[in-house]
């Protein structure tokens, strides 16, 4: 790898070797792998080998081109052949970059053109049928061959650009940016734009500006007390509450010597690892009109039970309960990362502990607070389960969108319009946040040695933090006690006899003739959820942190637009993402519906933003001179990322893994449309059971999931480890 500033011959030659590997993959895809997606038993079953490579359905592109006369594959052959020139001749970098860029573009454009020219019924544009001849019916989508060729063309393009000096000429960075843009474009921009274009269509499917105007100018959505107002109010209330509470928890954990610290760590994560439906249910059991609290109040003081929980207060409570841990995960790394040297300096200048906290510690946490606030706000806007269960007559955007899609008047155009409004709200806050944090320094982890003591919180602040955090913790504990107990009662609220029946129904196992039969009704969805979450969590974290590194440490043209793009899927309610995935990936060119890939893709691209934000918050604290030092010692950007930056980002890695695993295990709205018979998800199963009144089964299942996720979180912590910043621990107060 070359040094960032001075292009060198050695670097570009090395870069070319990498291009060579990618080209080899491209040729493999072109000449050997089946070009089209293989239906039926699938790729790994190897049944496709029986008809490969000559049958047109399993043939690689090269065979389709020469044997079946499918001339449209010719430009791909050219695009893969041209870059070979770069290896043959000792070409100048400028010429080489032109060849690579040209062939990369040719390959990608041809591929996209093929993808959109052929759909399931054959040619989408009739004249093409006359030029190339008719295609058989039921055209399969793009397969592994196409994927390999696309990857090769993309990497050729990126290396070409790097040779011209894009991304400071760093081939690894250029390739990573290119791959990220392609993936985010494919799994975010493409499906969402397909849905959003519907806003232009009226209910009969014709382009209509009147429909567009009516959808946005509809007085009901903008008026005070209307759906936009409600959504905004709820989002801001939840974001403030969750950020403040999370700060209290983070401070208690990072800056006090209280014995309850460990307990707080575990407890604060609990609400997040709970399927959202279950917390809402427990809240009703507690605060509902027939709930425990009301029963006690009525018995003791004769207060007539009311339905206050249904509406803004209930949703706010449930969301704050569920989202405080998210904010905590973003914040705790930041709070722990603040270098005590600055605080010590303030104290040397005779500032009191309280003053130091207010003028040094708190401002240094600004990026963490802002990121936490942003994430909670956006998640509150996108939350669907809690408003549905506890909303009463409160109408918010996410629910309105869902019912625009599935309600009595199905109108995807209206759903698209509301989704655009929701997205606009989220992105406005995102822009404000960026403006506020721009051009201020928050670096606290530098290469200098840390010879300061970790500063304890001022007593007053500890008091406030405890005062806020304790009641909250107690509430969370009660709710968990109720959930766990629920699984052991015969019938929640009716029959208090203790039973193991629900666990047997859900997780029963029989051993017949030495083979294990998973007889419980929960097993299938349980294993599916676990597999999908285990696959998507590392992908999500890796992808999110990689993008965080690119955004936080690299300069390249189009960076602003790229960051904006990464926010899109997260800012949308799951239902919108779900339905747009079905619209985009059900039929060729890309057929993913009813597979596990569509679930994994949905989780990776939805949750990536949280990993990214945690990564960015953590990166702003790490002094870039550490990277520069590494670069000076001739380490490449990948080497620096791996050996310097990543180890310092351990808390962010933990946060990213934990969050994405949990999110995949507990999400429901996104997967409503994406589950299929073979890929039934745990949450969907729980909601289905709760719907028919089987609360015992639902809470038993939820309890098992909670325990499993606690174990997973602990495992992740152990595997990733913690970073050692070399801060001295404060002396234990006598």
């Amino acid at each position: 790898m070359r040094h960032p500033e001075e292009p060198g011959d050695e670097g570009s030659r090395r870069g070319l070797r990498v291009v060579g590997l990618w080209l080899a993959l491209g040729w493999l895809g072109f000449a050997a792998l089946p070009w089209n997606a293989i239906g039926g038993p699938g790729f790994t079953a190897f049944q496709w080998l029986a008809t490969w490579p000559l049958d047109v359905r399993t043939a690689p592109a090269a065979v389709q081109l020469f044997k079946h006369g499918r001339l449209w594959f010719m430009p791909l052959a050219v695009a893969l052949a041209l870059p070979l020139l770069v290896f043959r001749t000792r070409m100048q970098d400028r010429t080489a970059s032109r060849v690579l860029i040209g062939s990369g573009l040719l390959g990608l454009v041809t591929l996209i053109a093929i993808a959109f020219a052929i759909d399931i019924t054959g040619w989408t544009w009739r004249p093409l049928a006359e030029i190339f001849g008719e295609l058989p019916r039921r055209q399969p989508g793009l397969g592994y061959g196409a994927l390999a060729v696309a990857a090769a063309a993309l990497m050729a393009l990126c290396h070409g650009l790097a040779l011209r000096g894009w991304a400071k000429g760093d081939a690894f960075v250029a390739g990573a940016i290119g791959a990220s843009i392609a993936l985010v474009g494919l799994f975010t921009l493409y499906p969402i734009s397909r849905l959003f274009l519907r806003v232009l269509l009226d209910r009969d499917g014709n382009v209509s500006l009147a429909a567009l105007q009516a959808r946005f100018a509809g007085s009901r959505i903008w008026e005070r007390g209307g759906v936009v107002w409600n959504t905004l109010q709820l989002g801001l209330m939840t974001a403030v509450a969750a950020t403040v509470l999370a700060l209290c928890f983070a401070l208690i954990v990072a800056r006090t010597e209280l014995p309850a610290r460990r307990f707080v760590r575990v407890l604060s994560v609990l609400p997040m690892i709970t399927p959202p439906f279950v917390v809402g249910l427990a809240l009703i059991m507690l605060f509902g009109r027939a709930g425990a609290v009301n029963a006690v109040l009525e018995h003791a003081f004769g207060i007539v039970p009311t339905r206050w929980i249904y509406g803004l207060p209930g949703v706010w409570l449930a969301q704050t309960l569920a989202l405080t841990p998210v904010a905590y995960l973003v914040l705790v790394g930041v709070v722990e990362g603040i270098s005590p040297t600055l605080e010590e300096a303030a104290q040397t200048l005779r500032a009191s502990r309280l003053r130091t906290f207010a003028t040094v510690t708190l401002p240094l946490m600004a990026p963490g607070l802002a990121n936490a606030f942003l994430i909670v706000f956006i998640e509150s806007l996108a939350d669907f389960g809690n408003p549905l269960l506890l909303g009463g007559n409160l109408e918010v955007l996410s629910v309105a969108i869902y019912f625009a899609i599935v309600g009595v008047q199905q109108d995807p155009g209206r759903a698209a319009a509301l989704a655009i409004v929701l997205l606009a709200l989220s992105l406005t806050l995102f822009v404000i946040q960026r403006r506020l944090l721009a051009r201020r320094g928050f670096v606290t982890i530098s290469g200098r040695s840390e010879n300061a003591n970790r500063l304890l919180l001022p007593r007053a602040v500890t008091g406030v933090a405890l005062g806020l955090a304790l009641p909250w913790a107690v509430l969370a504990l009660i709710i968990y006690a109720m959930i766990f107990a629920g699984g052991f009662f015969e019938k929640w609220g009716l029959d208090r006899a203790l039973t193991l029946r629900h666990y047997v129904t859900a997780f029963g196992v029989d051993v017949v003739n030495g083979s294990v039969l998973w007889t419980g009704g929960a097993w299938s969805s349980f294993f599916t959820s676990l597999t999908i979450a285990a696959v998507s969590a590392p992908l999500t974290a890796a992808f999110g942190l990689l993008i965080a590194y690119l955004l936080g440490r690299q300069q390249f043209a189009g960076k602003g637009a790229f960051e904006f793009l990464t926010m899109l899927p997260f800012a949308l309610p799951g239902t919108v993402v779900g339905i747009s995935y079905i619209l985009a990936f059900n039929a060729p060119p890309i057929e993913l519906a009813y597979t596990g890939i569509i679930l994994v893709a949905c989780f990776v691209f939805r949750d990536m933003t949280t990993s990214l934000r945690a990564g960015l918050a953590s990166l702003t604290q790490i002094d870039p001179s550490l990277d520069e030092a590494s670069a000076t010692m001739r380490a490449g950007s990948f080497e620096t990322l791996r050996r310097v930056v990543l180890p310092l980002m351990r808390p962010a890695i933990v946060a990213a893994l934990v969050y994405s695993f949990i999110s995949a295990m507990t999400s429901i709205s996104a997967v409503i449309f994406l589950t299929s018979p073979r890929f039934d998800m745990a949450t969907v199963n729980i909601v289905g059971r709760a719907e028919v009144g089987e609360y015992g089964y639902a809470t038993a299942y939820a309890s098992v999931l909670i325990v499993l996720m606690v174990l997973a979180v602990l495992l992740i912590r152990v595997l990733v480890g913690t970073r050692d910043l070399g801060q001295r621990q404060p002396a234990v107060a006598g």
Partner: protein
Amino acid sequence: MRTGRWMGRFLAGFAGVLGLFAGIAPAAAQEVTVLCNFEVDWCEALKTTYERTTGQKAVFIRRTDGESLAQIRAERSNPRADIYHAAESASAKQLAAEGLLEAYKSPYMAELHDWAQRIAEENKYFQTPIYTGVLGFGYNTELLAKKKLPEPKCWKDLANPAYKDEIQMANPGSSGTAFNTVSTILQLMGEDAGFKFLAAMNKNVNQYTRSGTAGIRAAGKGETTIGIAFLHDSVAQTAQGYPIKTVAPCEGTGYEIISSAIIKGAPNPEGARKWMDFVLSPAGQNVAITVNKFQIPSNKNAQTHPMAPKASEVKLIKLDLDKYGSKEGREYLLSRWENEVFKAPK
């Protein structure tokens, strides 16, 4: 060569993941895939019995009616499911009009009640009814006694100011049940008088729920006193042990028709027809009793649950199911409801 190695590893991992999932990608259609709008326990029992009695394979995806509708439309160019099971008659009618369903006349047609045969015929066999359910309401007997409220017997009782903030019904914009309720009331009382009644009842409604069955479930748990619902959903609460009494309104009431239909371009049309025959047969319809469902089956030879509402106790009005079923009809009903009922001062 760090980069190369890293890319290689990444690629290997990626390919591994793809392989893992492609290995269990959609298989060639050997089983029938059912979009099942029943509750999940019923769907499961139906699948098991189907597999046992026919020796065929079935898989189901549990959906609400609106979700199924949205999904079938989204999959228009490449249908994945074979059966739209437990469709509301009006929903199936819409899909048939859009050319998304396949007509099928089952050999069991002759065994069906006359009403079911008539509806199948009217719909040119694009759908066949599997059950009907009667609309009404249920109330929580304990709460009613505690609050010393009169027993509601008729629709018009629900406008009694004594029930202020004690009634839940679903929002007709989101729930087919509620849409059906409003349509029934309008046809029972006449359009203007019907909206006037609904506006008066609005003062008593504490929440318009999203789901059609949420109100009666809330009544069961004591979160509200009265829930407007189908009688079979109300009886189900009683059967589960909640203190709910079910009422078939004295003025007479409407009903819903729930059908099954084959999706056009189904991957497994043969299996789809077998499924249709099964759910129209007594064996298929008797599954309901095993999972405590109280609907009225469409097959004359099928059994009805002993707790199910008796036809003799219910007065049905002459109902035009399609009166507000068209796109314009829906828009008309919902906009009047929103302006004259939902937004009316409380």
